[in-house]
């Protein structure tokens, strides 16, 4: 018969003031299975834990109930005490008589005491049905997959690889670098983006522990923490990277001109191209959509001029598999399309551009060699209006969140404009200036002083054309008047949105995303880089808008998490997961259907003892199961149970109140 020990904590005065603890002890002593019950001032203290250990040994206890604070607080502490006394730690139950009784019924000691007794009784009843559970060990493949080769992916990959853990870095486009490679200078220090990024890109390419797979995407991720198997599609580049020397003869001769994505379409690239001069790997790919050879079978110039003969028009997409143990998702962000702002004339007026277009223009390697010009006539603008919160904080037309970085980069743009066009003048329409960050407020302040930019607090209501100028009408809320600014160029600070393919990616990875498409972290405060799925981590803007320092910090945090995960040869896992009693499983596979983690697979067992005929049953993949219990509640045959929360345990609680 069960022999339960009950340990009731005073928690100093926290419990004892509102619950008559000795009375609780007297009451639980009446329960048949309770062989030992005692109260103590602080059960979680060393002497308190010692009492538990002694009692386990002296009274040959089969399970232990600690009536104290929330199990979310000290369950682990007491489990350890059980372990130390040679008892299986999962034979512990915690009765939460502090958060659930003494603290919330401070005016009624009698009721609080009675409730505490009931809670103890429930815990005792549950503990009787507790079973010994053992931590699950899962072998680990010590290789990480990083999805996305922007600054987040680069940083995570480098940090992991520096710990001598192999990394597979998958990048969608032909080169790593991401959005940061498009930036000219970075706030608040105005250091050159390329200068600080490209060395890291080169490091990635040359790192012995990093396998860089550019121009590719993840197709499928199967398995579970420590044991994932990823299918990666390498898109056909039509260039053999092994033989290509990156000389550039091909793209110089290519006759097809295509808008250049890297420069936001402000100039042209060829059909065979490297995205930008510092690209890593610095090998060209053929844009099959625009290549006349691949489309019509005519041309073939690049193959002719390529001395190493690296061009291969017959190349096909290739699917490769990698076994990995953890995933870092760093897919970055998209920019919001400002089309809904029709009253601004977006799309109609050529001289309205987005911030990233402006960024490319002022960049030394940009389409205009670092000089901002009006797209309409190529003239250098004198009066430039910057409008912030385009899409951000606008529930009606855009999204309700703040994109976080626009205040700062717009400030940077006023400085860059001032540097490039000395006689220019910036006007900034803003709602608030959000400059929380190290050196940010100072940066904004300095910019305002240095550039003499005019900051107008208010929304722009309309932009219309007057001659070759754009008239920007808006409200200056500070003086409470409508103002009109004559602008040569209007720059829209468009919002940061989640990558459009995030939902699809989330589905294939089996993780969740929020209503804006940003991937969801496991806990907003305490687990900001983990996802709910073990072994998958988030870095950078794919989780929420953030600036470069934050992105890099999160990427390094991911790396730390991955390294931590890979620290041992096996992973230890909480054993509170589902188990299938195959004898009763009828093989309907509804559990397979309901499991959010794909942790249930099917198995074949003989029909009866010694039978050759097989039937299908469910099987839990211990490594994947997170112990939610969805499968348990939908199992009509009662063939699945969730260790730690079995039907008998819960029913025992219900009937013992």
């Amino acid at each position, binding site marked *: 018969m069960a022999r339960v020990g009950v340990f009731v904590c005073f928690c100093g005065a926290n419990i004892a003031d509102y619950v008559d603890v000795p009375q609780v002890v007297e009451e639980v002593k009446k329960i048949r299975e309770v062989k030992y019950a005692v109260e103590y001032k602080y059960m979680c203290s060393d002497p308190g834990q010692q009492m538990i250990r002694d009692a386990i040994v002296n009274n040959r206890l089969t399970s232990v109930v600690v009536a104290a604070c*929330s199990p979310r607080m000290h369950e682990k502490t007491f489990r350890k005490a059980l372990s130390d006394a040679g008892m299986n730690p999962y034979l512990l139950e915690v009765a*939460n008589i502090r*958060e659930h*009784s003494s603290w919330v019924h401070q005016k009624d000691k009698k009721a609080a005491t009675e409730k505490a007794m009931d809670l103890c009784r429930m815990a005792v009843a549950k503990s009787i049905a507790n079973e010994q559970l053992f931590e699950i060990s899962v072998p680990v493949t010590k290789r990480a997959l990083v999805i996305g080769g922007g600054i987040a992916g680069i940083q995570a990959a480098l940090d992991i690889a520096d710990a001598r853990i192999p990394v597979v870095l998958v990048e969608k486009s032909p080169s790593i670098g991401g959005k940061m490679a498009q930036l000219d200078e970075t706030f608040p220090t105005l250091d050159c983006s390329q200068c600080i990024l490209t060395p890291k890109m080169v490091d990635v390419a040359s790192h012995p522990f990093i396998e860089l797979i550019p121009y590719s995407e993840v197709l499928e991720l199967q398995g579970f923490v420590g044991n994932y198997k990823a299918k990666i599609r390498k898109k056909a580049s039509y260039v053999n990277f092994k033989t290509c020397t990156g000389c550039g003869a091909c793209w110089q001769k290519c006759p097809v001109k295509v808008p250049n994505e890297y420069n936001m379409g402000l100039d042209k690239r060829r059909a065979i191209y490297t995205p930008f001069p510092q690209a890593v790997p610095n090998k060209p790919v053929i844009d099959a959509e625009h290549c006349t050879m691949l489309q019509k079978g005519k041309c073939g110039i690049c193959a002719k001029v390529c001395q190493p003969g690296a061009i291969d028009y017959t190349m096909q997409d290739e699917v490769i598999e990698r076994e990995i143990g953890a995933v870092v998702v760093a897919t970055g962000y998209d920019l919001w399309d400002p089309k809904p702002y029709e009253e601004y004339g977006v799309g109609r007026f050529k001289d309205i551009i987005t911030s990233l277009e402006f960024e490319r223009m002022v960049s030394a390697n940009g389409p205009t060699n670092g000089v901002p010009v009006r797209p309409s006539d190529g003239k250098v603008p004198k009066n430039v209006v910057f409008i912030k919160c385009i899409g951000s904080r606008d529930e009606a037309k855009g999204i309700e969140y703040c994109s976080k970085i626009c205040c700062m980069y717009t400030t940077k743009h006023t400085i860059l404009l001032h540097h490039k066009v000395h006689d220019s003048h910036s006007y900034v329409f803003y709602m608030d200036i959000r400059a929380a960050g190290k050196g940010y407020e100072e940066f904004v302040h300095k910019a305002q002083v240095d550039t003499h930019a005019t900051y107008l607090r208010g929304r722009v209501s309309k932009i219309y054309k007057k001659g070759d100028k754009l008239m920007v009408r808006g409200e200056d809320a500070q003086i409470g008047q409508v103002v009109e600014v004559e602008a040569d160029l209007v720059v829209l600070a468009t919002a940061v949105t989640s990558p459009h393919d995030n939902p699809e990616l989330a589905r294939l990875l089996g993780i969740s995303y929020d209503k804006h498409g940003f991937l969801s972290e496991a806990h907003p405060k305490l687990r900001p880089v983990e996802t709910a799925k073990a072994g998958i981590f988030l870095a950078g803007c794919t989780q929420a808008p953030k600036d470069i320092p934050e992105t890099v910090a999160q990427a390094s945090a991911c790396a730390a998490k991955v390294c931590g995960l890979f620290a041992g040869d096996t992973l230890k896992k909480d054993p509170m997961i589902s188990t299938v009693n195959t004898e009763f499983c009828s093989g309907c596979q509804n559990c397979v259907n309901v499991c959010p983690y794909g942790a249930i697979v099917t198995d074949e067992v003989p029909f009866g003892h010694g039978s050759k005929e097989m039937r299908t049953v469910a099987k839990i993949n211990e490594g994947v199961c997170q112990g939610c219990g969805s499968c348990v509640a939908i199992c009509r045959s009662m063939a699945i149970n969730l260790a730690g929360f079995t039907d008998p345990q819960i029913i025992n609680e219900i009937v013992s109140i």
Partner: protein
Amino acid sequence: MEATTDQLVSIEKPAITAPPDWEPVIIGILCNWCSYAGSDLTGTSRLQYPPNIRIIRVPCSSRVDPWFLVKSLQTTADGVLVSGCHPGDCHYISGNYYARRRFLVTKNLLNFLGFHEDRVQFSWVSAAEGPKFAKVVAKVTEDVKKLGPLHLYKKENFSK
């Protein structure tokens, strides 16, 4: 005072007047990640609520099999509260969506069979909603108190 038609329609059988010192027992089945954490927050915030609720911790609202509710009402409980994460916040991605469907049907069925709809109640309480948890418990307790002791289909050895 005579009962209105509306009241008549929703009066349970047998309509027994509760003894003056009667207090209902509410069983609260809470998901570990949101509602249980929320109830802990209620405690740490020292927000007071009626002492009638007895809380059972489950990992997720999707772990709650409808027969727990039936069993509770048949044995010790006068009312049941099941609480989980808000839609979209499920720690296990989709558990509460499955649970929500079952709860709706279970609640309707129990009501169809004679249980007042307030006997079984559901709430979404996040880990941050300590005050909401206190409010929810107060409401459920008050509702059940109004209904009086539950006698329908109780087990014979039920006594408390």
